[in-house]
């Protein structure tokens, strides 16, 4: 099944919240805060990106890839989860 990309990214920053804020302002993300209570993973959402798409957003992939302070990032995909 083809992945369905959503308008959220998980990003790991080297220098925490300030850096995540700067990055969000720079590229138009909304910083939804840390993913884990105690670390550098941040949840960013972009209102300009389709809520669901069959293709990743190459532009933002490229931008994030060029950012030196971004250690790791991943555009989120819809996870098919069923109740048991």
């Amino acid at each position, binding site marked *: 099944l083809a992945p369905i990309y*959503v308008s959220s990214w*998980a990003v790991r920053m080297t220098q925490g919240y300030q850096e995540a804020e700067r990055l969000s302002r720079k590229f138009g993300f909304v910083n939804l805060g840390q993913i884990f209570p105690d670390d550098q993973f941040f949840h960013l959402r972009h209102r300009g990106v389709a809520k669901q798409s069959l293709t990743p957003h190459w532009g933002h992939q490229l931008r994030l890839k060029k950012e030196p302070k971004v250690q790791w990032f991943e555009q989120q995909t819809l996870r098919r989860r*069923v*109740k*048991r």
Partner: protein
Amino acid sequence: SLVSPTDPWFSKQWYMNHEIQPDHNILRVWNQGLTGRGVVVSILDDGIEKDHPDLWANYDPLASYDFNDYDPDPQPRYTTSDENRHGTRCAGEVASTANNGFCGTGVAFNARIGGVRMLDGTVTDIVEAQSLSLQPQHIHIYSASWGPEDDGRTVDGPGILTREAFRRGVTKGRQGLGTLFIWASGNGGLHYDNCNCDGYTNSIHTLSVGSTTRQGRVPWYSEACASTFTTTFSSGLATDPQIVTTDLHHQCTDKHTGTSASAPLAAGMIALALEANPLLTWRDLQHLVVRASRPAQLQAEDWKFNGVGRQVSHHYGYGLLDAGLLVDLARVWVPTQPQRKCTIRVVHTPTPILPRMLVAKNVSACSEGPRRLIRSLEHVQVQLSLSYSRRGDLEISLTSPMGTRSTLVAIRPLDISGQGYNNWIFMSTHYWDEDPHGLWMLDLENKGYYFNTGTLHYYTLLLYGTAEDMTARPPGHQVTSRTCVQRDTEGLRQESEGDGQSSIVAWLCVLSSWPTLNSHTHQAVTTGWVSCHPVIPARA
């Protein structure tokens, strides 16, 4: 004669009211005074009706959140078909209030219960990871009755962040003792699904729970697989009785079913064990569940004795979970020694897969000099990448040096994928406590058309365990010292020889006499717990 709760629907709770024998033996635990007090359980699902008459008294807002709307209120989204009743039903099994004249009784009816609403919206790796790492120093047990589709064709598991959440949970959660993740093993029986194709249930960080019917048969929805630990009662055919619990709109139901109903029952029993011994690590619990699960009346064609003499089945793991036995063992459990891991690269060059192929590996290097790194196994994993023309036709099994054969993935007729397995990790619990040294045999067999072809790109054997010879532990009471230091109410130290009524639990003494079965009465600590010296939290 055991005291029973007075709730009107307790008489319908056949799986714990002694209507059948054996059942989960929960009444005996309640009559020892253990009811889940002080333990916090959170149900990761589609929300929880926090104002339900049978839940509000135990509801814990700190163990709750709504990751769909990012707000603290986990109240479910109500729809005409009540499709978001799942979380509330699971919650009631764990901690619905006792003796309040309403509905039935939760297994741990004095535990605090929370709900995470995350399933009924957009589920992403971020949402799962955040849900599984909500308040890890406050929540002791996370129970999840969901997973990838059980369609018999999917191979899917947690993403990078969720795996990180598991890892953080077991290393940092519960002040370092490790968060307990309880998982429903899956409902794909009709599609010949196998829960080793589900990365949540076959994770070493989760405790996967199977189901059995009242008659002890394999339910139609049950998935056999090697990563299931234990089994609790659930439903079966339409004529079989099901599970009693809370329902939306302040109602009760006796129609809770599937492995969804099994996981919370196990979570509740584990809450009772945690109350008996709060210092149990996440691995201690897994050891205890293995020992507290028994074949009982469970019927399966594949029961067999493993290398240390325990019966194990792909349908039921080690069998029916007995809360009484779990608590007895928990009270006297000596902490498990640190986890050891041994990685053995067996195949690292592409090898054509023959119709029947055996890959042998003699494991002797699992040592540090003369000392054996692992003497007693816990989880065994096979990580591999392979391509195959029709993935579901390839059956993979692994036989240990002590002769235990475990089917890592059986034939899945609906899995027609040509993608093979990419870095997939299969896991088995079947070799628990066995000695890993000797010949391991991986068996790949084409169970489909003769013209199937494929290539095994690599195969790594991952052994987890401990340096201790766990089979050398005396069964039952394991008191390392009969001397128990007690303190009177002023905290003055009193020395006493073991009086037969007390036992040392990880250096805490428990006076095992709780005279009454009631909810929300607070017993003075000195009648329940005294502290001995030294207190050493177990390190996983």
